[in-house]
């Protein structure tokens, strides 16, 4: 219990530090980012009035204080160039749901495929399936993701006559984005479940189970799988939440109206407040995901003492 409290506190502290750093960094941006189109036409007085209106001429500590207060109210400011004068929270709200839908779908797919592939690899260690899986894992980890996303987009739309871009009303258009999203996580799960299972298979209790006369299938499912899954549990919440952030490529490639695609757009259009809001969203997602993962793992396996966690994995 004490652990959970300290873990929660640490995450909160991290989040505060990140928010402060992000805020201070954004203040270093050129002021053009707060005006949108027509900046050149404004004279010095108008610029000053606008800046004053936004509270950007106050001393930094005051700005920081105001920023914290508005954050507590759940106010992330208003968009400037993307959809002028619209609250950022409102823009993000709809997008989050779309992203989360894709995230859950792709995670389900990659869990099923990844775990089965990993188990297959562990059972046939050194044989065809192991080699096949290793090639896949190496490819997915080494090559930058956008390259195979682009190749999938080019070839699969031709071969399988699938739509190129996402359209909410066309069910077929969900297939390619979900496939792309799940490729990397599938490799990740396959690699780790294989490694953990191979580790577990060399342990004494497996030998005992075999000596007792249990079938190899039974040993796999009832003993090895369960133990091997414990370390994986740590990454589950993080990967659910990361799909919201990690889909920057896929969402903009297939023009899915989610947060990842939005980030690319607003960076290109220099919408300072919206970039700030998105970065804050992503970092809080990451921090919360890691925290949930640690808590979940300690809940899964009571043997794990996390009193001195950090670094000694």
């Amino acid at each position, binding site marked *: 219990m004490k652990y959970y409290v300290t873990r929660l506190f*640490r*995450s909160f*502290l*991290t989040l505060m*530090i*990140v928010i402060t750093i*992000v805020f201070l*960094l*954004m203040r*270093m*941006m050129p002021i053009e980012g707060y005006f949108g189109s027509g900046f050149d036409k404004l004279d010095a007085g108008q610029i000053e009035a606008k800046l004053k209106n936004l509270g950007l001429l106050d001393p930094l500590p005051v700005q920081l204080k105001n920023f914290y207060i508005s954050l507590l109210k759940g106010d992330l400011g208003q968009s400037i160039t993307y959809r002028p004068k619209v609250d950022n929270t409102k823009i993000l709200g709809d997008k989050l749901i779309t992203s989360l839908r894709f995230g859950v779908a792709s995670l389900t797919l990659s869990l099923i495929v990844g775990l089965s592939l990993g188990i297959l690899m562990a059972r046939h260690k050194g044989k065809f399936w192991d080699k096949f899986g290793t090639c896949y894992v*190496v*490819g997915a*980890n*080494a*090559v*930058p*993701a*956008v*390259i195979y996303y*682009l*190749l999938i*987009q*080019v070839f699969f739309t031709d071969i399988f006559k699938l739509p*190129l871009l996402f359209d909410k009303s066309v069910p077929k258009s969900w297939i390619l984005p979900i496939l792309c999203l799940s490729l990397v996580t599938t490799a990740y799960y396959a690699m780790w479940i294989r490694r953990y299972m191979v580790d577990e298979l060399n342990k004494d209790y497996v030998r005992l189970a075999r000596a007792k006369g249990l079938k190899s299938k039974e040993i796999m499912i009832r003993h090895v799988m369960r133990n091997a899954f414990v370390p994986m549990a740590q990454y589950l919440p993080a990967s659910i939440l*990361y799909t919201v*952030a*990690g889909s*920057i*490529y896929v969402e*903009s490639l297939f023009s899915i109206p989610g947060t990842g695609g939005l*980030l*690319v757009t607003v*960076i*290109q259009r220099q919408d300072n407040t919206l*970039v700030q809001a998105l*970065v804050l969203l*992503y*970092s809080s*997602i*990451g*921090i919360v995901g*890691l925290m949930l993962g640690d808590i979940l793992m300690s809940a899964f396996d009571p043997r794990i003492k996390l009193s001195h966690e*950090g*670094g*000694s994995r």
Partner: protein
Amino acid sequence: MTRKKIMNDINDNIDPSLFEFAEYDETKSELTGYSNYSFWKSTFQVFMKNKVAVALLILIVSVVLFTAIQPYLPNQKSPTQIYINPETGLQYRNIRPNDPSVSENFIFGTNSIGQDLWARIWSGTRTSLFIGVSVAIFEAIVGITIGALWGYVRKLDAVITEVYNVWDNIPTTVVLIILTYVMKPSISTIIFAMCMTGWLQMARFVRNLILIIRDREYNLASRCLGTPTSRIITKNLLPYLVSVIMLRMALAIPAAIGNEVFLSYIGMGLPIDIPSLGNLINEGRALMMDPNQRYQLFFPAAVISVVTISFYVIGNVFADSADPRNHV
């Protein structure tokens, strides 16, 4: 009487050469209980057993050498010059590879404004490799220094661990995006942004290993026998660390190349007048829906795949073979 005779006999039969100083021969002194084990030799032997890794090593070495000498070869075109058809006065736009209808020969064709793709790809590979290697070296220097301090100096342990926990909790993507968004786009910006997060992993691995190895019995024994610290570091610690350090460095290169592609993709990469693999992929992506223009995407994609997969595989295999536990 007999005793005296015996003593005389002995005295007569003694070989005086036995009582001279022998010449010191290092190899002979170590004949007993000393194997001719050499860390680097064993590493090399284990590495050479993996045929795939050796093939990739040869491939990547030739690619790197080629990118280095390519500009000095005869008949190479400039990666940034826009080529103009002398007959029509127009730019050579989107000329397909080895197009026979064009008098000039473009090996990989040209891009949408008439620049030579062949020269651009090698120039881009140079840029990307430079970024990757710089990031890897910086990561190694900072990571090893901080990791060693973290592991050795007990007082620092708690402090650095706290800093690490906070820093490691921030998603890498966020750091990359925010730093490149705030700073001016350039090679140094990109390298700086990647270095900000990259060293963390290295420091953690080095720290953990030093923590484990430092107080092992064999190190204690070495210290008691008066082995100098430099020898303890080079002979007792370094062989264990080489594996991890090389792995992290080898993986840092494909990761840096991937990050560069990512940053270019979201519009935070290098300025377009500097050819880089990320910029080339972006140019190719813009034209990929036209089947005739897809070569502009495929050529850079192929080069990236070859480079990243090679570094990834070589790094992993080398790490395995540099691990003293895998030596005979």
